[in-house]
């Protein structure tokens, strides 16, 4: 796996250069806009168009392209998983078709917002070089789904402050962020057979990865933090006595930096043939 390939291009400066080049090559048009808006709410669709029309600040473009790559990864993962014959049992299909549809809608929204500045869709390898077989092994599919969703939540959270400069775009990103958290909760609970037993509850206990493979421990590292804005939440009063470290960690999700997220998804991204 080459770290300097597609993920290297998510460096803001490289992204900006790519966008500029594509603008020059293709013009600023956004083909397929009408198609893409089917499942995006009207207000957001208008935002996507107006954000593009008004010119998005470069730092915001960079964040949105970062989000776009993650959404492309998730969307393709679920499109292929739902399409894989015999993979998902009938009882669980609604869960994954719902998530698939949402991720596809997120991709559409981000592409519309970015217009000609959107990065190309990467080529994904969900076997991570042969380590996994998620489209023939349902347990692996569910485990990777959990890892991707929990990572997505952390990724949006880490980028949100850079969107304060563009409040309407921040608001849109937050409405995606919380949906990723809903997905994460559902997949986590599915992986725990809906028994709500640690560590497979809807929320993350300490840095416990649960069913997620050890190779992806980085998805959960740092989630054990209990100090928020200088306040140790595990010392505060609970219903009886002091809040436990488990509860204090569960009550707050933690952000990841862009570099941390890229390191997590790197094994699943390959350089596109071009």
């Amino acid at each position: 796996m080459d770290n300097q390939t597609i993920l290297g291009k998510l460096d803001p400066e490289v992204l900006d250069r790519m966008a500029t080049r594509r603008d020059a090559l293709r013009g600023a048009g956004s083909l397929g806009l009408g198609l893409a808006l089917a499942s995006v709410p009207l207000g957001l669709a208008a935002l996507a168009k107006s954000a593009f029309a008004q010119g998005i600040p470069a730092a915001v473009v960079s964040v949105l392209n970062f989000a776009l790559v993650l959404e492309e990864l998730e969307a393709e993962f679920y499109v292929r998983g739902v399409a894989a014959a015999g993979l998902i049992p009938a009882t669980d299909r609604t869960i994954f078709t719902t998530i698939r549809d949402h991720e596809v809608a997120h991709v559409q929204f981000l592409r519309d917002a970015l217009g000609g500045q959107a990065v190309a869709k990467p080529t994904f390898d969900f076997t991570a070089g042969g380590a996994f077989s998620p489209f023939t092994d349902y347990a692996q599919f569910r485990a990777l789904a959990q890892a991707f969703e929990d990572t997505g939540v952390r990724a949006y959270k880490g980028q949100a402050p850079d969107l304060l400069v563009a409040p309407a775009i921040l608001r849109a990103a937050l409405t995606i962020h919380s949906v990723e958290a809903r997905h994460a909760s559902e997949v986590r609970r599915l992986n725990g057979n809906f028994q709500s037993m640690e560590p497979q509850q809807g929320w993350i206990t300490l840095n416990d990865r649960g069913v997620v493979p050890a190779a992806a421990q980085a998805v959960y590292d740092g989630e054990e933090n209990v100090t928020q804005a200088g306040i140790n939440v595990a010392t505060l009063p609970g219903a009886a006595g002091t809040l436990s470290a488990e509860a204090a960690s569960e009550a707050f999700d933690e952000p990841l930096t862009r570099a941390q997220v890229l390191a997590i998804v790197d094994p699943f991204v390959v350089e596109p043939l071009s």
Partner: protein
Amino acid sequence: MSEIIRPGTGELSPLSRIGEPTGRRGFLKWTGVGAAALFVAGCEDGTDVRTITEVTPPDTIEVAPPPPTFAAVTLDFSNNFGILNYAYALEQLEAAFYTMVVADAAFGTTFDEPTRRVLTDLRDHEIAHREFFERAIPALGGTLIPELTPNFDGVDFANRESVLTTARTFEDLGVAAYNGAGPLLSNDDTGRTLLTVAGKIVSVEARHAAAIRDILAPRSMAFAPAAFDDALPPSQVLSAAAPFIRNRVTATNVMNIG
């Protein structure tokens, strides 16, 4: 007026203290009664606390002490502390709700074991959020709004459907509230820090919402009803929350971000 009224029923306890032993900060419980004990209009730090005058119904004078009034609260959204107090108000509501849910005598029979675990976790998470804001706001230099008084008259705590649908309302509302308020924070270092904290909380509220929704409608698409969650302006959130809070809570100076 100004009779001393003793805390009597849980219903009249302040929102964030339901289920706690009496005594801790109990003096605060009744400072809003009658006279203008809390009159801090137009504070620089974004809180604007006023009492409201409420006339005692004449036909109750003989049989009961006058009903307490509840300090009205105005949240100034032009100020980060107004936004933090908005979150604090909602977390007070949620924490009080789940504390009553878990403390109910019928809790063990109303819900199955997995659901009890979920509701108990939610109680602890919401308490963590409330206690965090209760310390963070003063630590950052702001002034806390008073403890609010809940109104759960419409909730049957011994009824599974009643509790779970109310929980769904609160969790979805919390998500929409944080999503709507985050972009109102200041675009500076303080705002960035606060947005990160708010982001840490809102995704947990969304995890809660999905879990409650899944319990109500297992393995359906209910856990995430749309690809994009709501982001509601404070006025809409406070209107939706109003039936559950005895205090009148309003928002002012809310930036229109289009």
